[in-house]
Protein backbone atom coordinates (compact mmCIF):
# COMPACT_ATOMS: atom_id res chain seq x y z
CA UNK A 1 0.00 0.00 0.00
CA UNK A 2 1.31 3.41 -0.89
CA UNK A 3 0.51 6.24 1.40
CA UNK A 4 1.88 9.44 -0.02
CA UNK A 5 2.59 11.88 2.76
CA UNK A 6 2.23 15.13 0.81
CA UNK A 7 -1.14 14.19 -0.44
CA UNK A 8 -2.44 13.88 3.06
CA UNK A 9 -1.03 17.17 4.18
CA UNK A 10 -2.76 18.86 1.29
CA UNK A 11 -6.06 17.22 2.01
CA UNK A 12 -6.18 18.43 5.55
CA UNK A 13 -4.01 21.45 5.13
CA UNK A 14 -7.10 23.32 4.04
CA UNK A 15 -8.65 23.22 7.46
CA UNK A 16 -6.34 25.12 9.83
CA UNK A 17 -6.09 28.00 7.42
CA UNK A 18 -9.84 28.19 7.21
CA UNK A 19 -9.85 28.16 10.96
CA UNK A 20 -7.63 31.20 11.24
CA UNK A 21 -9.56 33.16 8.70
CA UNK A 22 -12.74 32.54 10.56
CA UNK A 23 -11.15 33.43 13.84
CA UNK A 24 -11.99 37.12 14.08
CA UNK A 25 -15.53 36.87 12.79
CA UNK A 26 -16.35 33.80 14.79
CA UNK A 27 -14.79 35.23 17.92
CA UNK A 28 -17.14 38.19 17.79
CA UNK A 29 -20.16 36.11 16.84
CA UNK A 30 -19.30 33.73 19.61
CA UNK A 31 -19.45 36.60 22.07
CA UNK A 32 -22.80 37.87 20.83
CA UNK A 33 -24.42 37.63 24.27
CA UNK A 34 -21.60 39.73 25.72
CA UNK A 35 -22.11 42.25 22.95
CA UNK A 36 -25.81 42.34 23.75
CA UNK A 37 -25.06 42.90 27.43
CA UNK A 38 -22.61 45.72 26.74
CA UNK A 39 -25.07 47.33 24.38
CA UNK A 40 -27.79 47.13 26.97
CA UNK A 41 -25.55 48.76 29.56
CA UNK A 42 -24.50 51.49 27.16
CA UNK A 43 -28.04 52.40 26.21
CA UNK A 44 -29.17 52.48 29.83
CA UNK A 45 -26.13 54.51 30.90
CA UNK A 46 -26.96 57.10 28.26
CA UNK A 47 -30.62 57.27 29.23
CA UNK A 48 -30.11 57.29 32.97
CA UNK A 49 -27.21 58.92 34.76
CA UNK A 50 -27.95 56.82 37.82
CA UNK A 51 -27.19 53.54 36.11
CA UNK A 52 -23.44 53.64 36.64
CA UNK A 53 -23.63 54.91 40.22
CA UNK A 54 -21.84 52.55 42.63
CA UNK A 55 -24.99 51.93 44.60
CA UNK A 56 -26.88 50.86 41.51
CA UNK A 57 -24.09 48.57 40.36
CA UNK A 58 -24.09 47.00 43.82
CA UNK A 59 -27.85 46.60 43.55
CA UNK A 60 -27.51 44.77 40.26
CA UNK A 61 -24.93 42.42 41.70
CA UNK A 62 -27.10 41.78 44.75
CA UNK A 63 -30.19 41.19 42.67
CA UNK A 64 -28.30 38.90 40.34
CA UNK A 65 -26.62 36.88 43.07
CA UNK A 66 -29.42 34.41 43.74
CA UNK A 67 -30.31 33.93 40.08
CA UNK A 68 -26.64 33.47 39.22
CA UNK A 69 -26.39 30.52 41.56
CA UNK A 70 -29.58 28.97 40.24
CA UNK A 71 -28.33 29.44 36.69
CA UNK A 72 -25.07 27.63 37.50
CA UNK A 73 -27.00 24.55 38.48
CA UNK A 74 -29.25 24.93 35.48
CA UNK A 75 -26.20 25.10 33.23
CA UNK A 76 -25.10 21.71 34.51
CA UNK A 77 -28.49 20.17 33.90
CA UNK A 78 -28.84 21.71 30.46
CA UNK A 79 -25.37 20.54 29.44
CA UNK A 80 -26.37 17.06 30.58
CA UNK A 81 -29.21 17.26 28.08
CA UNK A 82 -32.14 17.95 30.39
CA UNK A 83 -33.61 20.81 32.25
CA UNK A 84 -35.03 21.44 35.66
CA UNK A 85 -38.38 23.14 36.08
CA UNK A 86 -38.44 22.37 39.80
CA UNK A 87 -35.58 24.65 40.77
CA UNK A 88 -37.85 27.54 41.73
CA UNK A 89 -39.72 25.29 44.13
CA UNK A 90 -36.41 24.01 45.47
CA UNK A 91 -35.37 27.58 46.25
CA UNK A 92 -38.54 28.05 48.28
CA UNK A 93 -38.26 24.68 50.00
CA UNK A 94 -34.68 25.06 51.10
CA UNK A 95 -35.24 28.63 52.26
CA UNK A 96 -38.15 27.53 54.42
CA UNK A 97 -36.52 24.35 55.70
CA UNK A 98 -33.39 26.26 56.51
CA UNK A 99 -35.32 28.98 58.39
CA UNK A 100 -37.33 26.40 60.23
CA UNK A 101 -34.37 24.25 61.26
CA UNK A 102 -32.33 27.21 62.40
CA UNK A 103 -35.17 28.41 64.57
CA UNK A 104 -35.39 24.96 66.14
CA UNK A 105 -31.63 24.36 66.45
CA UNK A 106 -28.85 26.66 65.26
CA UNK A 107 -27.74 28.60 62.22
CA UNK A 108 -25.10 26.23 60.74
CA UNK A 109 -27.45 23.29 61.00
CA UNK A 110 -30.18 25.36 59.42
CA UNK A 111 -28.01 26.30 56.47
CA UNK A 112 -26.83 22.73 56.05
CA UNK A 113 -30.40 21.44 56.15
CA UNK A 114 -31.51 23.92 53.51
CA UNK A 115 -28.75 22.95 51.13
CA UNK A 116 -29.16 19.25 51.84
CA UNK A 117 -32.87 19.23 51.11
CA UNK A 118 -32.10 20.85 47.76
CA UNK A 119 -29.67 18.04 47.03
CA UNK A 120 -32.25 15.44 47.98
CA UNK A 121 -34.85 16.85 45.61
CA UNK A 122 -32.16 17.07 42.94
CA UNK A 123 -31.35 13.43 43.48
CA UNK A 124 -35.01 12.49 43.10
CA UNK A 125 -35.16 14.42 39.84
CA UNK A 126 -32.05 12.68 38.63
CA UNK A 127 -33.38 9.30 39.62
CA UNK A 128 -36.68 9.82 37.84
CA UNK A 129 -35.00 11.15 34.71
CA UNK A 130 -32.10 8.74 34.43
CA UNK A 131 -33.47 5.54 35.92
CA UNK A 132 -37.21 5.75 35.31
CA UNK A 133 -36.41 7.43 31.99
CA UNK A 134 -39.15 10.01 32.37
CA UNK A 135 -38.74 13.01 30.10
CA UNK A 136 -37.03 15.82 32.07
CA UNK A 137 -39.81 18.24 31.24
CA UNK A 138 -42.47 16.02 32.76
CA UNK A 139 -40.33 14.77 35.63
CA UNK A 140 -39.28 18.18 36.85
CA UNK A 141 -42.67 19.73 36.14
CA UNK A 142 -44.19 17.11 38.39
CA UNK A 143 -41.49 17.73 40.97
CA UNK A 144 -42.05 21.47 40.78
CA UNK A 145 -45.68 20.99 41.78
CA UNK A 146 -44.91 18.38 44.42
CA UNK A 147 -42.20 20.44 46.09
CA UNK A 148 -44.32 23.58 46.05
CA UNK A 149 -47.07 21.59 47.74
CA UNK A 150 -44.57 20.30 50.29
CA UNK A 151 -43.34 23.81 51.09
CA UNK A 152 -46.88 25.02 51.60
CA UNK A 153 -47.60 22.03 53.83
CA UNK A 154 -44.50 22.65 55.94
CA UNK A 155 -45.13 26.34 56.32
CA UNK A 156 -48.90 26.26 56.25
CA UNK A 157 -48.60 28.82 53.48
CA UNK A 158 -47.08 31.51 55.65
CA UNK A 159 -43.57 32.93 55.77
CA UNK A 160 -41.33 31.45 58.44
CA UNK A 161 -39.92 34.19 60.62
CA UNK A 162 -40.14 32.91 64.18
CA UNK A 163 -41.36 34.94 67.12
CA UNK A 164 -38.49 37.39 67.07
CA UNK A 165 -37.22 36.99 63.57
CA UNK A 166 -34.46 34.75 62.30
CA UNK A 167 -31.13 34.68 64.18
CA UNK A 168 -29.03 37.81 63.86
CA UNK A 169 -25.95 36.06 62.45
CA UNK A 170 -28.04 34.66 59.66
CA UNK A 171 -29.46 38.05 58.79
CA UNK A 172 -25.91 39.41 58.85
CA UNK A 173 -25.24 37.05 55.98
CA UNK A 174 -27.93 38.77 53.96
CA UNK A 175 -26.74 42.30 54.56
CA UNK A 176 -23.16 42.16 55.87
CA UNK A 177 -19.98 42.74 53.92
CA UNK A 178 -16.48 41.35 53.71
CA UNK A 179 -13.75 43.60 52.31
CA UNK A 180 -16.48 46.06 51.46
CA UNK A 181 -18.38 43.57 49.35
CA UNK A 182 -21.61 41.88 50.38
CA UNK A 183 -21.44 38.25 51.42
CA UNK A 184 -24.27 37.72 48.99
CA UNK A 185 -21.91 38.69 46.19
CA UNK A 186 -18.97 36.69 47.49
CA UNK A 187 -20.93 33.45 47.52
CA UNK A 188 -21.70 33.30 43.79
CA UNK A 189 -18.18 34.45 42.95
CA UNK A 190 -16.64 31.59 44.91
CA UNK A 191 -19.17 29.09 43.61
CA UNK A 192 -18.53 30.29 40.10
CA UNK A 193 -14.83 29.52 40.45
CA UNK A 194 -15.46 26.08 41.90
CA UNK A 195 -18.11 25.07 39.42
CA UNK A 196 -16.20 26.47 36.44
CA UNK A 197 -13.28 24.35 37.46
CA UNK A 198 -15.48 21.30 37.91
CA UNK A 199 -17.17 21.81 34.58
CA UNK A 200 -14.32 22.87 32.37
CA UNK A 201 -11.19 21.47 33.98
CA UNK A 202 -11.98 17.99 35.24
CA UNK A 203 -12.61 14.58 33.79
CA UNK A 204 -16.06 14.68 35.36
CA UNK A 205 -16.82 17.82 33.37
CA UNK A 206 -15.80 16.15 30.13
CA UNK A 207 -18.05 13.22 30.90
CA UNK A 208 -20.93 15.57 31.55
CA UNK A 209 -20.45 17.25 28.19
CA UNK A 210 -20.05 13.93 26.42
CA UNK A 211 -23.15 12.48 28.05
CA UNK A 212 -25.21 15.50 27.09
CA UNK A 213 -23.72 15.62 23.60
CA UNK A 214 -24.28 11.98 22.75
CA UNK A 215 -25.47 9.75 25.51
CA UNK A 216 -25.05 6.59 23.49
CA UNK A 217 -21.46 7.41 22.55
CA UNK A 218 -20.57 8.23 26.13
CA UNK A 219 -22.19 5.02 27.29
CA UNK A 220 -20.32 2.91 24.79
CA UNK A 221 -17.09 4.55 25.88
CA UNK A 222 -17.73 3.26 29.36
CA UNK A 223 -19.19 6.38 30.95
CA UNK A 224 -21.71 5.73 33.67
CA UNK A 225 -24.23 7.94 31.99
CA UNK A 226 -27.03 7.45 34.48
CA UNK A 227 -24.78 8.49 37.30
CA UNK A 228 -23.53 11.49 35.37
CA UNK A 229 -27.04 12.64 34.52
CA UNK A 230 -28.17 12.17 38.10
CA UNK A 231 -25.19 14.15 39.34
CA UNK A 232 -26.17 17.13 37.20
CA UNK A 233 -29.59 17.25 38.84
CA UNK A 234 -28.01 16.87 42.26
CA UNK A 235 -25.74 19.85 41.59
CA UNK A 236 -28.72 21.81 40.40
CA UNK A 237 -30.61 20.88 43.55
CA UNK A 238 -27.69 21.74 45.83
CA UNK A 239 -27.12 25.07 44.12
CA UNK A 240 -30.86 25.72 44.26
CA UNK A 241 -30.55 24.99 47.98
CA UNK A 242 -27.72 27.48 48.39
CA UNK A 243 -29.75 30.04 46.47
CA UNK A 244 -32.75 29.36 48.69
CA UNK A 245 -30.75 29.86 51.87
CA UNK A 246 -29.25 33.07 50.52
CA UNK A 247 -32.65 34.34 49.50
CA UNK A 248 -33.98 33.55 52.98
CA UNK A 249 -31.19 35.58 54.53
CA UNK A 250 -31.84 38.41 52.11
CA UNK A 251 -35.58 38.32 52.77
CA UNK A 252 -35.04 37.71 56.49
CA UNK A 253 -37.57 34.91 56.36
CA UNK A 254 -38.41 31.60 54.71
CA UNK A 255 -40.91 32.48 51.97
CA UNK A 256 -43.11 29.65 50.69
CA UNK A 257 -43.88 31.55 47.50
CA UNK A 258 -40.26 32.43 46.77
CA UNK A 259 -38.62 31.34 43.56
CA UNK A 260 -41.65 31.37 41.28
CA UNK A 261 -40.58 31.65 37.64
CA UNK A 262 -36.94 31.16 38.60
CA UNK A 263 -36.94 28.04 36.46
CA UNK A 264 -38.00 29.87 33.33
CA UNK A 265 -35.78 32.87 34.00
CA UNK A 266 -32.74 30.72 34.65
CA UNK A 267 -33.32 28.51 31.62
CA UNK A 268 -33.72 31.62 29.50
CA UNK A 269 -30.48 33.03 30.95
CA UNK A 270 -28.53 29.84 30.30
CA UNK A 271 -29.80 29.50 26.76
CA UNK A 272 -29.16 33.18 26.08
CA UNK A 273 -25.63 32.43 27.22
CA UNK A 274 -25.36 30.02 24.31
CA UNK A 275 -26.03 26.63 25.90
CA UNK A 276 -27.99 24.24 23.71
CA UNK A 277 -31.17 22.68 25.06
CA UNK A 278 -30.31 19.39 23.36
CA UNK A 279 -27.30 19.15 25.62
CA UNK A 280 -23.54 18.95 25.33
CA UNK A 281 -22.90 22.65 24.78
CA UNK A 282 -22.47 25.45 27.30
CA UNK A 283 -20.06 27.54 29.28
CA UNK A 284 -20.50 28.66 32.84
CA UNK A 285 -19.30 32.23 32.31
CA UNK A 286 -21.63 32.60 29.39
CA UNK A 287 -24.57 31.56 31.50
CA UNK A 288 -23.55 34.32 33.88
CA UNK A 289 -23.66 36.77 31.00
CA UNK A 290 -27.16 35.50 30.31
CA UNK A 291 -28.11 36.15 33.92
CA UNK A 292 -26.75 39.66 33.73
CA UNK A 293 -28.67 40.37 30.56
CA UNK A 294 -31.89 39.47 32.36
CA UNK A 295 -30.97 41.35 35.53
CA UNK A 296 -29.58 44.50 33.97
CA UNK A 297 -32.64 44.62 31.76
CA UNK A 298 -34.99 44.50 34.75
CA UNK A 299 -32.94 47.10 36.58
CA UNK A 300 -32.73 49.40 33.60
CA UNK A 301 -36.46 49.24 32.92
CA UNK A 302 -37.09 50.15 36.55
CA UNK A 303 -34.61 53.01 36.45
CA UNK A 304 -36.22 54.33 33.30
CA UNK A 305 -39.60 53.92 35.00
CA UNK A 306 -41.02 52.00 32.10
CA UNK A 307 -44.61 51.01 32.79
CA UNK A 308 -44.75 47.44 34.01
CA UNK A 309 -46.88 46.33 31.06
CA UNK A 310 -44.36 47.75 28.65
CA UNK A 311 -41.61 46.15 30.71
CA UNK A 312 -42.95 42.75 29.82
CA UNK A 313 -43.03 43.58 26.18
CA UNK A 314 -39.47 44.87 26.38
CA UNK A 315 -38.18 41.82 28.26
CA UNK A 316 -39.73 39.47 25.74
CA UNK A 317 -38.36 41.40 22.81
CA UNK A 318 -34.85 41.50 24.25
CA UNK A 319 -34.88 37.76 24.97
CA UNK A 320 -35.93 36.96 21.43
CA UNK A 321 -33.60 39.49 19.86
CA UNK A 322 -30.59 38.29 21.83
CA UNK A 323 -31.33 34.68 20.94
CA UNK A 324 -31.85 35.55 17.28
CA UNK A 325 -28.58 37.47 17.16
CA UNK A 326 -26.82 34.49 18.69
CA UNK A 327 -28.20 32.31 15.91
CA UNK A 328 -26.33 34.23 13.24
CA UNK A 329 -23.25 32.42 14.49
CA UNK A 330 -24.73 28.98 13.97
CA UNK A 331 -25.95 29.92 10.55
CA UNK A 332 -22.45 30.91 9.50
CA UNK A 333 -21.08 27.56 10.59
Amino acid at each position, binding site marked *: MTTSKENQTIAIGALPEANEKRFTVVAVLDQMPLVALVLLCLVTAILSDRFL*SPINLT*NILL*QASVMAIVAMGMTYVIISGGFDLSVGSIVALSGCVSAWVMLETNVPLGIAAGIAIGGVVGYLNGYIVSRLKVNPFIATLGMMVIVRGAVLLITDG*RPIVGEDGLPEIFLELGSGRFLGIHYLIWVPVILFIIFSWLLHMTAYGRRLFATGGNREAAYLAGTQVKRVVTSAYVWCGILGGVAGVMLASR*LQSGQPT*AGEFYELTSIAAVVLGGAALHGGVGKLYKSMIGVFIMMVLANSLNLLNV*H*SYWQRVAVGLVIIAAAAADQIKSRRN
Partner: protein
Amino acid sequence: AAGKTIGVALASDTNPFYIVMRKGIEIQAKKLGWKVRIVTANEDVNKQVNGVMDLVAQKVDGILISPIDAIATGAAYKAAHDAGIPIISIARGSKSKYQTLFVAMDSKQIGRDIGDWAAKKAGGKGKIAMISGPPGSNVFKDLADGFKEAMAKQSGMKIVYEQTGGLTRERGLNQAEDILVAHPDVKVIYAGNDEIAMGAGQAVATAGKKSNLIITGLNGVPPALKAVMKGSIDMTVVVSPMVWGKLGANIMNDYLSGKKHKQKIFIKHIIATKGTAAKYLPPKRKK
Protein backbone atom coordinates in the same frame (compact mmCIF):
# COMPACT_ATOMS: atom_id res chain seq x y z
CA ALA B 1 -78.05 24.69 61.40
CA ALA B 2 -75.73 21.98 62.54
CA GLY B 3 -74.71 18.98 60.44
CA LYS B 4 -74.49 20.98 57.25
CA THR B 5 -71.78 20.78 54.67
CA ILE B 6 -70.48 24.11 53.46
CA GLY B 7 -68.38 24.62 50.38
CA VAL B 8 -65.70 27.27 50.38
CA ALA B 9 -64.08 28.65 47.23
CA LEU B 10 -61.07 30.84 47.92
CA ALA B 11 -59.07 32.85 45.44
CA SER B 12 -55.66 31.63 46.50
CA ASP B 13 -53.95 29.32 48.94
CA THR B 14 -50.64 31.11 49.06
CA ASN B 15 -51.81 34.63 49.88
CA PRO B 16 -51.69 34.98 53.70
CA PHE B 17 -54.93 36.93 53.59
CA TYR B 18 -56.88 33.94 52.32
CA ILE B 19 -54.96 31.47 54.42
CA VAL B 20 -56.08 33.29 57.53
CA MET B 21 -59.61 33.73 56.22
CA ARG B 22 -59.77 30.03 55.64
CA LYS B 23 -58.69 29.43 59.25
CA GLY B 24 -61.46 31.77 60.42
CA ILE B 25 -64.06 29.89 58.45
CA GLU B 26 -62.80 26.53 59.65
CA ILE B 27 -62.77 27.58 63.30
CA GLN B 28 -66.29 28.94 63.14
CA ALA B 29 -67.56 25.98 61.14
CA LYS B 30 -66.28 23.64 63.79
CA LYS B 31 -68.19 25.58 66.42
CA LEU B 32 -71.32 25.37 64.32
CA GLY B 33 -70.86 21.67 63.77
CA TRP B 34 -70.40 21.91 60.00
CA LYS B 35 -68.32 20.00 57.57
CA VAL B 36 -66.28 22.19 55.25
CA ARG B 37 -65.18 21.43 51.71
CA ILE B 38 -62.62 23.80 50.34
CA VAL B 39 -61.45 24.47 46.80
CA THR B 40 -58.83 27.07 45.89
CA ALA B 41 -57.87 28.57 42.59
CA ASN B 42 -54.47 30.34 42.63
CA GLU B 43 -56.08 33.47 41.22
CA ASP B 44 -57.23 31.57 38.12
CA VAL B 45 -60.88 32.45 37.48
CA ASN B 46 -61.59 29.49 35.30
CA LYS B 47 -60.22 27.19 37.95
CA GLN B 48 -62.43 28.87 40.52
CA VAL B 49 -65.52 28.37 38.38
CA ASN B 50 -64.53 24.72 37.98
CA GLY B 51 -64.07 24.42 41.73
CA VAL B 52 -67.50 25.82 42.50
CA MET B 53 -69.03 23.43 39.99
CA ASP B 54 -67.32 20.59 41.76
CA LEU B 55 -68.84 21.83 45.01
CA VAL B 56 -72.27 22.03 43.37
CA ALA B 57 -71.85 18.49 42.12
CA GLN B 58 -71.30 17.44 45.71
CA LYS B 59 -74.63 19.06 46.70
CA VAL B 60 -73.21 21.15 49.54
CA ASP B 61 -75.72 23.18 51.59
CA GLY B 62 -74.13 26.55 51.02
CA ILE B 63 -71.13 28.13 49.39
CA LEU B 64 -68.84 30.84 50.70
CA ILE B 65 -66.81 32.35 47.92
CA SER B 66 -64.20 35.03 47.55
CA PRO B 67 -64.60 35.58 43.83
CA ILE B 68 -61.48 36.41 41.87
CA ASP B 69 -63.48 38.49 39.46
CA ALA B 70 -66.89 40.09 39.76
CA ILE B 71 -68.10 39.14 36.30
CA ALA B 72 -66.09 36.12 35.32
CA THR B 73 -67.38 33.97 38.14
CA GLY B 74 -70.96 34.47 36.95
CA ALA B 75 -71.23 30.91 35.73
CA ALA B 76 -70.32 29.67 39.20
CA TYR B 77 -73.06 31.73 40.84
CA LYS B 78 -75.55 30.57 38.27
CA ALA B 79 -74.63 26.94 38.79
CA ALA B 80 -75.13 27.32 42.54
CA HIS B 81 -78.40 29.10 42.03
CA ASP B 82 -79.67 26.48 39.60
CA ALA B 83 -78.93 23.80 42.15
CA GLY B 84 -80.71 25.81 44.86
CA ILE B 85 -77.54 26.41 46.84
CA PRO B 86 -77.08 29.80 48.53
CA ILE B 87 -73.79 31.46 47.62
CA ILE B 88 -72.32 34.25 49.75
CA SER B 89 -69.37 36.39 48.70
CA ILE B 90 -66.70 37.47 51.14
CA ALA B 91 -64.19 40.27 50.66
CA ARG B 92 -64.53 40.41 46.93
CA GLY B 93 -67.99 40.69 45.44
CA SER B 94 -69.81 39.57 42.34
CA LYS B 95 -72.06 41.42 39.93
CA SER B 96 -74.07 38.25 39.44
CA LYS B 97 -77.77 38.54 40.21
CA TYR B 98 -77.51 35.14 41.82
CA GLN B 99 -75.24 36.36 44.59
CA THR B 100 -77.12 35.64 47.80
CA LEU B 101 -75.27 38.05 50.07
CA PHE B 102 -72.04 40.02 50.04
CA VAL B 103 -69.79 40.51 53.01
CA ALA B 104 -67.86 43.33 51.50
CA MET B 105 -64.62 45.17 51.67
CA ASP B 106 -64.48 48.57 50.05
CA SER B 107 -61.14 48.38 48.29
CA LYS B 108 -61.26 51.85 46.83
CA GLN B 109 -62.01 53.37 50.20
CA ILE B 110 -59.12 51.53 51.77
CA GLY B 111 -56.87 52.91 49.07
CA ARG B 112 -58.15 56.42 49.75
CA ASP B 113 -57.61 56.03 53.46
CA ILE B 114 -54.04 54.88 52.95
CA GLY B 115 -53.46 57.82 50.65
CA ASP B 116 -54.94 60.34 53.05
CA TRP B 117 -52.94 58.95 55.92
CA ALA B 118 -49.70 59.03 53.98
CA ALA B 119 -50.32 62.53 52.63
CA LYS B 120 -50.95 63.81 56.11
CA LYS B 121 -47.88 62.11 57.46
CA ALA B 122 -45.74 63.46 54.64
CA GLY B 123 -47.04 66.94 55.21
CA GLY B 124 -48.62 67.07 51.76
CA LYS B 125 -45.30 67.27 49.96
CA GLY B 126 -43.03 64.82 48.23
CA LYS B 127 -42.56 62.13 45.59
CA ILE B 128 -44.45 58.90 45.67
CA ALA B 129 -43.51 55.46 44.37
CA MET B 130 -46.08 52.68 44.06
CA ILE B 131 -45.26 48.97 44.17
CA SER B 132 -48.76 47.74 43.44
CA GLY B 133 -50.29 44.28 43.48
CA PRO B 134 -50.76 42.01 40.50
CA PRO B 135 -52.51 43.32 37.40
CA GLY B 136 -55.70 41.80 36.10
CA SER B 137 -57.78 41.76 39.24
CA ASN B 138 -60.03 44.55 40.32
CA VAL B 139 -59.12 44.49 44.01
CA PHE B 140 -55.55 45.63 43.59
CA LYS B 141 -56.47 48.00 40.83
CA ASP B 142 -59.15 49.58 43.06
CA LEU B 143 -56.77 49.86 45.97
CA ALA B 144 -54.21 51.63 43.81
CA ASP B 145 -56.86 53.82 42.21
CA GLY B 146 -58.20 54.85 45.61
CA PHE B 147 -54.70 55.73 46.68
CA LYS B 148 -54.14 57.76 43.53
CA GLU B 149 -57.45 59.55 44.04
CA ALA B 150 -56.36 60.66 47.47
CA MET B 151 -53.04 61.82 46.10
CA ALA B 152 -54.64 63.72 43.27
CA LYS B 153 -56.10 66.02 45.89
CA GLN B 154 -52.62 66.89 47.11
CA SER B 155 -50.98 69.46 44.92
CA GLY B 156 -47.60 68.92 46.54
CA MET B 157 -47.46 65.19 45.96
CA LYS B 158 -46.48 63.51 42.77
CA ILE B 159 -46.41 59.87 41.73
CA VAL B 160 -43.09 59.28 40.04
CA TYR B 161 -43.06 55.50 39.80
CA GLU B 162 -45.61 52.73 39.54
CA GLN B 163 -45.20 49.04 38.84
CA THR B 164 -47.62 46.14 39.17
CA GLY B 165 -46.60 42.60 39.96
CA GLY B 166 -46.60 39.72 42.39
CA LEU B 167 -47.19 40.01 46.12
CA THR B 168 -43.78 38.82 47.28
CA ARG B 169 -41.23 40.21 49.64
CA GLU B 170 -38.49 39.67 47.11
CA ARG B 171 -40.21 41.90 44.63
CA GLY B 172 -40.68 44.61 47.27
CA LEU B 173 -36.99 44.44 48.06
CA ASN B 174 -35.73 44.51 44.48
CA GLN B 175 -38.07 47.23 43.32
CA ALA B 176 -37.44 49.44 46.33
CA GLU B 177 -33.71 49.14 45.72
CA ASP B 178 -34.20 50.37 42.19
CA ILE B 179 -36.59 53.12 43.31
CA LEU B 180 -34.04 54.46 45.76
CA VAL B 181 -31.51 54.68 42.95
CA ALA B 182 -33.84 56.27 40.43
CA HIS B 183 -35.54 58.60 42.90
CA PRO B 184 -33.30 59.07 45.93
CA ASP B 185 -35.65 61.75 47.30
CA VAL B 186 -38.78 59.60 47.27
CA LYS B 187 -41.01 60.36 50.24
CA VAL B 188 -43.71 57.71 50.21
CA ILE B 189 -43.62 54.09 49.07
CA TYR B 190 -47.04 52.53 48.57
CA ALA B 191 -46.97 48.75 48.76
CA GLY B 192 -49.71 46.46 47.43
CA ASN B 193 -49.59 44.29 50.53
CA ASP B 194 -47.62 43.70 53.70
CA GLU B 195 -45.08 41.36 52.13
CA ILE B 196 -44.13 43.94 49.54
CA ALA B 197 -44.03 46.59 52.26
CA MET B 198 -41.69 44.56 54.42
CA GLY B 199 -39.37 43.93 51.48
CA ALA B 200 -39.36 47.63 50.71
CA GLY B 201 -38.74 48.35 54.39
CA GLN B 202 -35.62 46.20 54.25
CA ALA B 203 -34.26 47.99 51.21
CA VAL B 204 -34.92 51.38 52.76
CA ALA B 205 -33.31 50.37 56.04
CA THR B 206 -30.23 49.05 54.24
CA ALA B 207 -29.94 52.29 52.34
CA GLY B 208 -30.18 54.16 55.67
CA LYS B 209 -33.14 56.24 54.55
CA LYS B 210 -35.80 55.04 56.93
CA SER B 211 -35.99 58.20 59.03
CA ASN B 212 -37.63 60.37 56.40
CA LEU B 213 -39.45 57.91 54.20
CA ILE B 214 -42.96 56.53 54.63
CA ILE B 215 -43.92 52.96 53.69
CA THR B 216 -47.52 51.78 53.70
CA GLY B 217 -48.75 48.21 53.87
CA LEU B 218 -52.01 46.34 53.71
CA ASN B 219 -53.61 43.29 55.41
CA GLY B 220 -52.34 43.59 58.99
CA VAL B 221 -50.73 40.16 59.29
CA PRO B 222 -48.76 39.73 62.53
CA PRO B 223 -45.24 40.07 61.07
CA ALA B 224 -46.31 43.32 59.44
CA LEU B 225 -47.79 44.60 62.68
CA LYS B 226 -44.49 43.85 64.36
CA ALA B 227 -42.66 45.64 61.57
CA VAL B 228 -44.90 48.65 62.14
CA MET B 229 -44.09 48.53 65.84
CA LYS B 230 -40.38 48.37 65.08
CA GLY B 231 -40.78 51.21 62.65
CA SER B 232 -39.44 49.44 59.59
CA ILE B 233 -42.74 50.16 57.89
CA ASP B 234 -45.09 52.96 58.91
CA MET B 235 -48.59 51.65 58.65
CA THR B 236 -50.72 48.75 57.62
CA VAL B 237 -54.44 48.34 57.22
CA VAL B 238 -55.91 45.68 59.43
CA VAL B 239 -58.55 44.01 57.32
CA SER B 240 -58.67 41.10 59.72
CA PRO B 241 -59.31 38.12 57.50
CA MET B 242 -59.81 35.94 60.57
CA VAL B 243 -62.80 38.04 61.62
CA TRP B 244 -64.07 38.01 58.05
CA GLY B 245 -63.91 34.30 57.85
CA LYS B 246 -65.82 33.87 61.06
CA LEU B 247 -68.34 36.49 60.05
CA GLY B 248 -68.85 34.84 56.69
CA ALA B 249 -69.57 31.54 58.39
CA ASN B 250 -71.96 33.17 60.83
CA ILE B 251 -73.87 34.94 58.14
CA MET B 252 -74.18 31.73 56.19
CA ASN B 253 -75.49 30.14 59.34
CA ASP B 254 -78.03 32.93 59.80
CA TYR B 255 -79.12 32.59 56.21
CA LEU B 256 -79.54 28.86 56.42
CA SER B 257 -81.57 29.23 59.60
CA GLY B 258 -83.77 31.76 57.89
CA LYS B 259 -82.50 34.94 59.50
CA LYS B 260 -82.52 37.95 57.19
CA HIS B 261 -79.53 40.18 56.44
CA LYS B 262 -78.94 43.17 54.25
CA GLN B 263 -77.73 42.31 50.74
CA LYS B 264 -74.38 43.90 51.39
CA ILE B 265 -72.58 43.87 54.69
CA PHE B 266 -69.53 46.07 55.01
CA ILE B 267 -66.67 45.31 57.27
CA LYS B 268 -64.64 47.98 58.92
CA HIS B 269 -60.97 48.30 58.21
CA ILE B 270 -58.59 49.83 60.70
CA ILE B 271 -55.35 51.68 60.13
CA ALA B 272 -52.59 50.43 62.39
CA THR B 273 -49.63 52.68 63.09
CA LYS B 274 -46.65 52.55 65.38
CA GLY B 275 -48.74 53.56 68.36
CA THR B 276 -51.69 51.28 67.75
CA ALA B 277 -50.29 48.18 66.04
CA ALA B 278 -49.69 46.20 69.23
CA LYS B 279 -53.45 46.08 69.89
CA TYR B 280 -54.15 44.05 66.77
CA LEU B 281 -51.59 41.36 67.34
CA PRO B 282 -53.20 38.01 68.05
CA PRO B 283 -52.52 36.69 71.56
CA LYS B 284 -49.22 34.83 71.78
CA ARG B 285 -49.51 31.11 71.38
CA LYS B 286 -47.69 28.93 73.85
CA LYS B 287 -45.60 26.10 72.46
